[in-house]
C-alpha cells in the first residue's frame, strides 16, 4: 500500500499543464500541502510509510516558505475542488471533459465520496469522455488524518465496478512505484480510464480531549473561487 503523498504527488508532477484536476476533500488537502507555487510537487520526496509522509509534508512546507506564489501558473488555475460536496467529483470532471474534449481531466476521488454517487461510474462510462482519468483513493476511512472513521468501502472492488460500468480500462494499484511509472501510460489511454489506489490512511490525530477547529470560511468559498479562476484560465484570460 502507498501513503497519501505517494498517491497524489505523481498526479501533481505529471499531469499535463493544459489538463484540469478535480479533487475531493482528502486529496485536496494533500495537493494543498504538497503543491509548490507553480502548482506541482516537483522535488517533493515520496517515501513510503508514515515517516515518508511526514518527511514529504515537511519538505513541501519548506519549499513553499522559500518560494513566491505564482497565481498565474497553469496548474494553480486548472484545479477545482468538489468541496464541501461529497460525491460530486466524477460528474464535475465529466462536465469539464465534455465541454473541453481536447484537454485531459484527472479526477482524484475519495472512496466514501465515490460510494455516495457510485452510479456516477455508469454516467461517466455512458458519456465516453476520451481524455478522462478517474482515480480513487481507497483508504477505507472518512475524515482521514483526523478521526479516521470507517468508510463503507471495505473490500469493495472499485476497479471492478468501473469495469462493469463500462470504463474502457480499469485497474488497481497498491505499489507507489508502479503507480508513478504507470500514470503517464494511463493518461495517454483513450478513456474513460479508472484506477483504484490502495492507500494507507493518514494516522488519526484525535484522542480524548481533542478540540475540533472551527471550519474556516475558505472551506465554503474555495469552490466558487476556483470555479471563477478555472473559467478565466479556460478563456485564456488573466486572473
Amino acid at each position, binding site marked *: 500500500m502507498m501513503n497519501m503523498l505517494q498517491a497524489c504527488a505523481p498526479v501533481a508532477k505529471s499531469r499535463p499543464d493544459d489538463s484540469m484536476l478535480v479533487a475531493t476533500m482528502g486529496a485536496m488537502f494533500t495537493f494543498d500541502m504538497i503543491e509548490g507555487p507553480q502548482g506541482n510537487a516537483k522535488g517533493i520526496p515520496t517515501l513510503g510509510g508514515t515517516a515518508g509522509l511526514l518527511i514529504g509534508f515537511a519538505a513541501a512546507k519548506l519549499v513553499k516558505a522559500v518560494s513566491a506564489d505564482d497565481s498565474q501558473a497553469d496548474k494553480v488555475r486548472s484545479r*477545482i475542488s*468538489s468541496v*464541501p*460536496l461529497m*460525491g*460530486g*467529483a*466524477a*460528474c*464535475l*470532471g*465529466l*462536465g*469539464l*471533459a*465534455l*465541454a*473541453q474534449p481536447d484537454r485531459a481531466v484527472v479526477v482524484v476521488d475519495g472512496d466514501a465520496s465515490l460510494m455516495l*454517487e457510485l*452510479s*456516477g461510474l*455508469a*454516467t461517466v462510462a*455512458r*458519456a465516453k469522455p476520451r481524455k478522462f482519468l478517474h482515480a480513487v483513493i481507497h483508504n477505507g476511512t472518512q475524515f482521514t488524518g483526523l478521526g479516521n472513521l470507517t468508510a463503507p468501502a471495505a473490500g469493495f472492488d472499485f476497479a471492478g465496478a468501473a469495469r462493469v460500468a463500462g470504463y474502457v480500462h480499469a485497474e488497481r494499484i497498491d505499489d507507489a512505484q508502479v503507480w508513478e511509472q504507470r500514470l503517464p501510460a494511463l493518461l495517454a489511454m483513450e478513456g474513460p480510464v479508472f484506477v483504484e489506489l490502495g492507500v494507507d490512511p493518514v494516522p488519526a490525530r484525535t484522542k480524548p480531549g481533542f478540540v475540533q477547529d472551527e471550519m474556516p470560511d475558505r472551506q*465554503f*468559498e474555495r*469552490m*466558487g473561487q476556483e*470555479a471563477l479562476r*478555472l*473559467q478565466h484560465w*479556460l*478563456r485564456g484570460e488573466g486572473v
Partner: protein
Amino acid sequence: MNLSEYSIPGSAMLERIKAIGVDHLVTVPDWVQMAFHSQMEAGGHGIQQINACSENQCVTLAAGLTLGGKKPLVSMQNQGLYNCVNTLRAVCLDAHIPMVFLVGQFGREYANLGQDSRQSRRTMVRVMEPLLDALDIPYFRLDRPSDLGLLDQAYEVAQKRSTAAVALVGAPMSWS
C-alpha cells in the same frame, strides 16, 4: 377542466431552448416533461442529451459544462430536486455557478391546475415553492403555453445573480 389549456407542447419547449442557445440537456427524465423528452430523443436538433443516474450527478455535470463554456439545461422532476438540494447548495449557492432547472410538478392533481400549487393536496407539489423560497432560489411558473418565455428570464436571472433559477412545469406537456 381542459388539460390543453395548461399543457406546454413538448415541441414548443424544444424550440424555446434552441432559441435560447442551450447546447446540452442534462437529465433524469420527468413524467411531466415526457413529451419534451420524446422530442429530444428523436434527435436532429443539435442539442446533446446526457442522462445521468441521479439528480446530484445532473447538477455537478452541468456545473462542469458551464465552467467549460457550455450552456446546459438541467431537467428533472420535483422529487429529483428534493434529492439534489445539497448539491445545488454547494454548486449554485456557495460556488455561485449559474444553472437553470426545468422541474416538472409530478403528482399535481388536475383539480389544482390553474390554482396555487401551494394549495395542492400532494406534498411533493405543495412544498416545492416554499422550499425554493427558503433556499432563496428564484423560480418561474410555466403553468400555460404562454408562460414559455419565462424560461428566457430564468437564464437571465441565473446568470445575473450567479445562482440557480428554477422553471416549474405545472402540467404534463402535450404531445401535439
